[in-house]
Structure formats: structure tokens, C-alpha cells
């Protein structure tokens, strides 16, 4: 197992992203290749889960597009991810908030985590 971890560290370029966890609202900017052109698209939503560890870690972001839920799974070390911005850190009790999928409207709100002076 250790061989795999050291190999992952050598072969995968690990980027520095802000720390985020499930319940947080983030914006992911990622590159899209269309033919020969490249452009940057953003995806803003709530993080539902972080899965795996090391180079193969992924996270799932859910957003409401109109009234249709859209989820995207990103590998955290994907070279296509330009940047991740943390918009709001939410207060949730679970590491994987799948119950959030059934919530709509007012119920689909996440309490914002309060930052106290001594925590910063």
C-alpha cells in the first residue's frame, strides 16, 4: 500500500486547493476542450461528498439547474480543474449528505458555519 501511495505522490501533481468538505458551497472552474479550442467553465454548487484518498480522491458537487438537480463528480487532482473557490462553508452533521438530494425549496438550505474570531 505504501508503494502505491509514494507512486501516486510521484506521478500525480497534487494541486493546492482551499480546504472544503461536504455542505460547503464551492465554485469549480474547469477547462473544456472543444475541438481545438479551450475554454473555462464554472460549476457552482454544494459539495455532497468527498470520496477516496490520495491521488484518486474525488468530490461530488450538486446544483439546481432550473428545477433539475445536476451533479458532477470531479477527481480532485484532475489537470482540467483550474481553480476551486470556497463561497460558503456550511454546517452539516454528516460527511456524505445524500439526504440533500430529496430536499427542495426552503428545505434545501444549509446553515452557514459561523466563524468566530478565535477560530481564524
Amino acid at each position: 500500500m505504501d508503494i502505491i501511495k509514494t507512486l501516486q505522490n510521484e506521478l500525480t501533481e497534487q494541486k493546492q486547493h482551499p480546504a472544503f468538505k461536504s455542505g460547503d458551497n464551492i465554485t469549480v472552474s474547469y477547462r473544456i476542450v472543444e475541438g481545438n479550442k479551450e475554454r473555462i467553465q464554472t460549476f457552482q454548487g454544494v459539495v455532497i461528498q468527498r470520496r477516496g484518498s490520495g491521488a484518486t480522491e474525488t468530490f461530488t458537487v450538486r446544483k439546481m439547474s432550473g428545477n433539475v438537480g445536476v451533479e458532477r463528480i470531479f477527481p480532485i487532482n484532475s489537470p482540467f480543474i483550474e481553480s476551486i473557490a470556497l463561497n460558503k462553508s456550511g454546517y452539516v452533521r454528516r460527511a456524505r449528505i445524500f439526504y440533500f438530494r430529496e430536499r427542495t425549496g426552503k428545505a434545501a438550505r444549509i446553515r452557514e458555519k459561523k466563524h468566530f474570531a478565535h477560530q481564524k
Partner: protein
Amino acid sequence: MPGIIGRKIGMTSIYSAEGKATPCTVIEAGPCVVTQLKTQDRDGYDAVQLGFGEKKENRTTSALKGHFKKANTTPKAKLVEFKGFDNLNVGDVILANIFEEGEYVGVKGTSKGKGFQGVVKRHGFGGVGQSTHGQHNRLRAPGSIGACSYPARVFKGMRMAGQMGNSTVTIENLQVLKVIEEKNLLVVKGSIPGAKGSTVIIEK
């Protein structure tokens, strides 16, 4: 085909040059020691016997101890013969750098044992009927295995329940993605047979 003996380390994924995540298996390939040369004159065929993995001296039979002493090496856990090597002498060490990145290899190993399994798991049968509406006990049964008075027997090779897995499996045309010489590691694309830590044979 020239090849090497190795040990499966496990799976991970790496990013290709285009940025695609590629599933891959890490194999510790070698170092392997040439323990014997088989020659046309003496044995009727040309081959090279390679040894891989350490074994305790007190668990080695006297006959094998002598065999390893001839090659001037410590007792090895696994001995495999390969054809297609040239200009090797007994005692030479073969490393993972006989492979190049981008080359295609075949990997032979022992698949994970699944025990005695029924036809649904072993051969992908659909089972019989449905699970409700008076169904008795035929849900995962094989169904008919042939006709009646003619041919009055069951054809050879009829797929039935039995031991699944724990058999020798070769997967061919796996691309070598990386060769890490200093650690003797090979990274091949896709999966290979067997559990982590099991011995595998990698052939060109």
C-alpha cells in the same frame, strides 16, 4: 517470449498526457536471478530459468538448495522458465528495465478464488422464472441441460455449477505506462488477475 516474474502491488489511477485518468496496476517486477540455462543439447530446448522472491533456507529442500548454490544465489520462492532471452549466464540479474514504456505485455496470474458457485454467478445465467407469483425454488437454477431420449446424454462442456476462480488467467495486450527502474516497478494499464501480493508472470 522473454519475460519477468513479479508481484502484484495494487491498483491506482494516473493521468495521461491529455489529462485523462487511466486505471492502472502496479507490479513489482524483479529483480529476478537466472538460476539455470536449459540448452538444446542437454534438455532438448533452449530456455532460461528465472527465480524471484526470497524463501527461508530451512523451508528449502536439499535438492533445491544445491540448485540455488550452483547459481550462487539465495533460495528463491518462485522459479519460471522463459524462452527468447539471449546471452545470459547463470547468476545474472534481470530487472524491470527489460520493458519499455508504451510496449504491450501479457500478464499471467492466478485469479481470485470464488469457491463453488452456481450458474448465475459463474456463467451469467438469468435464472428461471420470477421471484414471486408461486415461484418455488427455481430462482437461480440452470434450467434444462438438454433434450430427452435423443441424445440421451448431457453434452460435454455443458455449463454447470462448480469451482470458480483460482485458475491460471492470462491477460494480453496490456500497455506499459511507466517503468520505474530504481524501484523495479511496472505500471500497466488496466487490471491483472489475482489478489494483491500474488505472484504474476509478465511476458513481452
